[in-house]
């Protein structure tokens, strides 16, 4: 019966409208005829027959509606029954050729798995919204400083940002480190001082207790702290009775009032506690000192443009009223997520692009496999076609096979992706925000499914379409050799090879550029000698170490005690060491120039004890380093880096010249001038990938008291030794325990390790792209091998004839190579064009190498050509080894 319904629906199916009309008309006629027989006039009989329906139009309507539903259901049933037939048939086909299926599935699974793994990282880091309901309305607000985004001062925040009506909530945050002491070892954690608006901008209910209020964000009432889930579990063992207890932060006691849930994880800073920032009125009036990170949430309905307009109009009176500190003030705002992940998104998208190319190559290979199999199956398909299956029906059947193949591969690929993600997260450099939260979630699953369907169409459509276009008679006659469409298929297969080679070259050039850049980076001079140096960070709590003299004296005692550690050849204190966090920057004015923003040279400050340059082996190029004689009351001096000397006094001898910096001079109107006594080599403090910035060194004794606030009393102890520097860790802890009891030592690391870390991100990227390049190379050479081998098989007879007519083995090899040469050459040409267009995306990751570096391009072309010809060598030698008699008899 079901079969009958299907048959009818396929062969003869009147439209429902006609069907109902005809059926009712038939009824009316029959009834009228019956009534006429009983003696009615024909007209009256017809009227009566219609009247019996009461409302024949309504009845027809109902029937049409029911009939349409019936047809729809039937079509659906039919579709699914065909689909399940196709799927079952596809599975049988794949199982019948296990070798083919395994190769295709593995190739695809590698491509899909790698793509899914990289995609999940991109999704986790870049695409996923922040875990707040207002995540798409969150902005970071900055002051525009020298064309970049700078932090905001408390005064500018209070007068300029807080009053913006387009913001529903706004907060100012200062990230700083806290010594947690009492109960257990002293420990150092990153925390945030924030205005009470923080928990409105980032609305999430605390897991326990409460968050702090506006009332508590006041001087004198601010001794309350909210803990992160991580800190609560790690340090307090997830103690449920923690609320109301007191902890000591930087020698002050705070009451614990709340614990946030684990999902409250905002930034790469990974702060672990929050306390009120409690601006004093003086602080709120301070328009200099830019140290605040500002986050805001747009009011519902308000736009970022409105907020920017308000910020601009608020800046105007500030510029007027505070010409000295804010004469050039202007604000900008960027979406917070973009701000957070901007540095990583380009890199991740580059990787995603690269892995997508690998997937394309994999698809190309599978398409070639399918083409070969389509040829082998041509008689089967011809028979199906002769039995009435249309071209569309056969294409659908073959596409279903591709999709089944692809979905099996995707399932396997997801398994690979899960491994890949774990490896990726473990190998990735530290500090990529949210990367550690990468998992295979629903989005990744959906992406993978989509990926497999797209791949199936990519690799399956052309072969299916070709295979479905069989000439029934020839195909059956040829008994499956399938040479009928040979020419066309060859062009398609060769085209695939051309594309694969082009994409592989693109990947190789990208990887090659990054490798060259890595090598160049390692050859760069960091400006100091990292070997044998250990640095460790300490922070003196402001409550205990409040006045300048105590701080400076403690630092000197620390440096002296560190120098006495056996094995230490020199020791010093610096507020900042290269490739490490922290530090402070100042705007410097060379003497003779007015202190307007255009004349300021933005420079990094290092406050050092005399032995620092020696301990780091930062060469003094001119003049002298700092000495013990540079004390308070003596001539105020500074040592500048070469970059600063050139920026301040281009083409002149800087020794003896003066630069204004850091405080007001005795007359209160000009900056305080310091005399340059030495020039050092430049140090690549921000990492090997970045050009050295201007730096200056001041003696601990001569800096103004505020300077210790800028750097939050936080310094590095640096020791140089001829031994393994790592063994100095414990002696340094001992020195700090003796001289500054209760102060934790943190961020302990050898300078070599810091240097390595600074290059970790670049190395990681290079490694991944090289891996992808290698996979692309292998896959495309497998593709070349497959096509050339197919070519040799197809022309076996011809080769036999040639050999019989006297062609040498060398001629045969040449014939095969000639066949291989032009797709390889064309692929390389296209690949070069694509590389020239696309390597630009790498340009900001490249150090010391142009994105069009000819060495890399030429080198990779040669490498690819060698591998490609190598791949065609195997079938070529097989052809040369043919026995002409056997070949002719095939």
């Amino acid at each position: 019966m079901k079969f009958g319904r299907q048959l009818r629906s396929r062969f003869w199916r009147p439209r429902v409208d006609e069907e109902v009309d005809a059926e009712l008309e038939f009824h009316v006629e029959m009834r009228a005829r019956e009534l006429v027989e009983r003696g009615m006039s024909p007209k009256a009989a017809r009227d009566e027959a219609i009247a019996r329906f009461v409302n024949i139009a309504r009845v027809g309507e109902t029937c049409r509606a029911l009939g349409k539903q019936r047809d729809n259901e039937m079509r659906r049933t039919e579709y699914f029954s065909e689909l399940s037939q196709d799927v079952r048939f596809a599975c049988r086909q794949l199982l019948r050729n296990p070798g083919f299926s395994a190769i295709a599935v593995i190739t695809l699974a590698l491509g899909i798995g790698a793509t899914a793994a990289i995609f999940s990282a991109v999704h986790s880091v870049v695409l996923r919204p922040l875990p707040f309901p207002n995540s798409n309305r969150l902005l970071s607000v900055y002051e525009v400083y020298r064309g970049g985004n700078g932090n905001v001062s408390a005064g500018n925040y209070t007068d300029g940002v807080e009053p913006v009506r387009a913001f529903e909530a706004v907060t100012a945050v200062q990230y700083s480190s806290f010594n947690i002491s009492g109960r257990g070892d002293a420990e150092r954690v990153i925390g945030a001082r924030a205005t009470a608006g923080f928990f409105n901008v980032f609305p999430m209910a605390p897991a326990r207790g409460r968050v702090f209020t506006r009332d508590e964000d006041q001087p004198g009432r601010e001794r309350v702290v909210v803990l992160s889930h991580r800190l609560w579990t790690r340090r307090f063992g997830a103690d449920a009775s923690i609320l109301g207890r007191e902890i000591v932060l930087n020698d002050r006691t705070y009451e614990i009032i709340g614990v946030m849930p684990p999902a409250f994880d905002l930034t790469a800073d990974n702060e672990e506690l929050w306390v009120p920032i409690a601006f004093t009125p003086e602080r709120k009036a301070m328009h200099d000192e830019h140290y605040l990170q500002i986050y805001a949430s747009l009011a519902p309905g308000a736009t970022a443009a409105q907020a920017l307009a308000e910020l601009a109009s608020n800046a105007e009176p500030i510029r007027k009223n505070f010409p000295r500190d804010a004469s050039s003030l202007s604000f900008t705002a960027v979406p917070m997520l973009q701000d957070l992940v901007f540095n990583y998104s380009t890199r991740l998208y580059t990787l995603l692009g690269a892995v997508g190319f690998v997937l394309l190559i994999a698809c190309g290979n599978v398409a070639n496999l399918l083409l070969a199999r389509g040829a082998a199956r041509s008689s089967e398909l011809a028979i199906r076609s002769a039995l009435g299956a249309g071209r569309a029906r056969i294409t659908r059947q073959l596409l279903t096979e591709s999709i089944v193949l692809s979905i099996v591969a995707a399932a396997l690929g997801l398994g690979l992706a899960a491994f890949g993600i774990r490896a990726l997260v473990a190998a990735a450099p530290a500090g990529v925000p949210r990367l550690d939260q990468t998992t295979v979630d629903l989005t990744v699953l959906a992406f993978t499914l989509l990926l497999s369907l797209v791949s199936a169409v990519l690799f399956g459509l052309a072969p299916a379409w070709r295979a479905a276009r069989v000439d029934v008679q020839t195909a059956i006659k040829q008994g499956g050799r399938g040479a009928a469409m040979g020419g066309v298929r060859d062009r398609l297969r060769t085209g695939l090879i051309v594309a694969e080679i082009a994409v592989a070259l693109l990947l190789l050039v990208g990887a090659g550029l990054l490798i060259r850049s890595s090598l160049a980076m390692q050859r760069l001079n960091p400006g100091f000698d990292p070997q044998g140096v250990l640095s460790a960070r300490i922070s003196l709590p402001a409550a205990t170490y409040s006045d300048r003299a105590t701080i400076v004296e403690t630092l000197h005692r620390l440096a002296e005690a560190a120098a006495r550690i056996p094995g230490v050849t020199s020791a010093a204190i610096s507020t900042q060491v290269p490739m490490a966090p922290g530090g402070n920057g100042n705007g410097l004015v060379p003497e003779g120039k007015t202190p307007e923003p255009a004349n300021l040279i933005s420079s990094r400050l290092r406050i050092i004890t005399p032995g620092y340059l020696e301990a780091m082996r930062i060469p003094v190029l001119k003049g002298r380093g700092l000495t013990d004689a540079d004390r308070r009351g003596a001539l105020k001096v500074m040592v500048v880096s070469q970059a600063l000397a050139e920026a301040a006094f281009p083409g002149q001898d800087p020794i003896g010249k003066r630069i204004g910096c850091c405080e007001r001079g005795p007359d209160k109107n000009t900056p305080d001038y310091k005399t340059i006594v030495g020039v050092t080599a430049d140090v690549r403090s921000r990492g090997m990938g970045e050009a050295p910035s201007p730096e200056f060194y001041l003696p601990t004794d001569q800096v103004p008291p505020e300077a210790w606030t800028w750097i939050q009393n936080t310094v590095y102890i640096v020791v140089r030794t001829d031994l393994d520097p790592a063994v100095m860790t414990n002696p340094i802890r001992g020195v700090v325990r003796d001289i500054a009891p209760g102060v934790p030592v943190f961020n302990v690391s050898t300078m070599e390790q810091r240097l390595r870390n600074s290059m970790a991100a670049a190395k990681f990227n290079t490694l991944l792209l090289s891996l992808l390049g290698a996979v692309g190379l292998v896959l495309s050479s497998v593709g070349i091998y497959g096509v050339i081998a197919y070519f040799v098989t197809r022309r076996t007879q011809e080769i036999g004839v040639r050999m019989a007519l006297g062609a040498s083995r060398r001629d045969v090899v040449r014939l095969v190579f000639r066949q291989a040469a032009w797709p390889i050459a064309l692929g390389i040409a296209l690949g070069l064009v694509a590389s020239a267009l696309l390597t630009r995306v790498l340009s900001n990751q490249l150090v010391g190498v142009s994105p069009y570096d000819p060495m890399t391009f030429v080198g990779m072309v040669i490498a690819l050509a060698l591998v490609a010809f190598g791949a065609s060598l195997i079938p070529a030698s097989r052809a040369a080894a043919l026995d002409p008699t056997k070949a002719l008899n095939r």
Partner: protein
Amino acid sequence: MLHGTLDALILKTLTWGVRHGYGIARWIEETTEAAVVVEEGSLYPALYRMERRGWIDAEWGTSELGRKAKFYRITPKGRRQLAADTEQWTRFAAGVSKILLPT
């Protein structure tokens, strides 16, 4: 007519052979000696509904008078439905009889 009874009557009619809509109506009227009159307004919607449910199956053919007509045939699913309907009817009729028939 009682709800659901029409479906059962149509199915029962079709167990005697293939019929078009008019034929079904006539057959029921003749067999019940016009005690049951099938309203056309209910008959055709019922036929389409049952066809959709797969109880009956339709095919176009030529009528006894040489006209194209839509002929219905009962399906195995329809037979099962008829059995269920019949049993339900029997129980219902027995119940009603217990009240109405004793004097």
